[in-house]
């Protein structure tokens, strides 16, 4: 998984210039349940991965999210 690309896609969803691995998702102005939905959609369409609602709620940083998607891809 190309993490840099993943952060770019995340930045697009969160309507911001750049997302760094250590950024907390909840700190973004655009973070809400619709952003979460867009992330589920990205995980599904770009990575073929299903992320559950409770999983996305428990993730804190962008890096944790990237790791979650990546770990699902290996299965």
């Amino acid at each position, binding site marked *: 998984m190309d993490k840099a690309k993943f952060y770019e896609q995340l930045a697009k969803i969160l*309507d911001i210039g750049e997302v760094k691995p250590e950024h907390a998702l909840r700190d973004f*102005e*655009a973070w*809400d*349940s*619709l952003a*979460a*939905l*867009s992330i*589920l*959609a990205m995980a*599904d*369409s770009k990575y073929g991965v*299903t*992320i*559950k*609602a409770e999983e*996305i709620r428990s993730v804190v940083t962008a890096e944790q999210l990237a790791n979650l998607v990546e770990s699902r891809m290996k299965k």
Partner: protein
Amino acid sequence: MKSIFKHKRISSIVSVVPKEEYRFDDEYPSFKLTPEKAKRFKKMMSLDRHRIAPPEVCSSDLCLYGLQQLLKDGTLKPEEIGALVFVSQTPDYFMPPTSNVIHGKLGLGHDVICLDINQGCAGFLLGLVQAFLLLEISALPKVVLLNGDTCSKQMDKCNRISYPLTGDAGSVTVIERCEAENPIYMDIKNDGSRYKAILVPAGAFRTPATPETIKLREVEEGVVQSEQHIHMDGAAIFNFTMNSVPPQVDETLAFSGDTRDSIDWFLFHQPNPFILTQMAEKMKIPAAKLPNNIVSLYGNCSSVTIPLNIALNCGEQLKDKSLRVCFSGFGVGLTWISMVMNLGPLPVCKIVDYEAT
């Protein structure tokens, strides 16, 4: 569960929408939304406008109006109505069935079956299945399927997510026997273990209405709801839709011997443009064959999205010819149904504005 129905067809469809049309651009200041957030939401969901019934107009009024149009223009005769099947989640009363109320208002004879079904997103297709089964009763001439929902009444008008996506509507579909074999292929699936994904938690008998159940709570910024409003787990619904509907559509196409090319139109329930775009991409169905414009123009009207979809996107084509269509309805229950059939010709297939009579 797969099955084939034969010698049945849809002969007319009328959808009825409230005259009252509201635009997102006018409404969003009443939601707790910054202009930036409103812009993002509008783009994500292709929001434009929706139709909302005034307080005094119920689902049954919209359905009754459509049915009266068919009777008035002679498309349907009162004595041909052998059954009224009313599919809704917003009935007039807990008791009696709303189909009986409609029967009474039309002054129909006594040899009629009245049946209410509680279903939403898959309600048009479940209603068709019920209609096909009823037509096995040989004494019964035609079935009138009534789909109606006024879900805007089950949410707070300041709920910035649910409300702009919702619309109210009713539809009338006439189903009858035909000489031609006209096989109709369907697959129907249910998973009640996930019933909480779309739920009105209180107001019926499990949790009766109390002053507490109508209290509004803010569950996230700008999303206010009471226990008597529709609660939706957006992420769970998204995952359900993406994981369950595409394989079912594929199975149904295999069952009917169809391909993406042999189907003229994929007429799906319209939950929101975001989910449908994702779904079309995942299923590799060209966007031109899978209309995705109902929510932008009318709002998600629960079981009426498919009748609206038929009239708006293929009504003209269907006037004098038959089209190969694949339907899919999915959501509350959870229930998901897909169907392949030849639809048309439908000389009457239209959308009308409701007028109080």
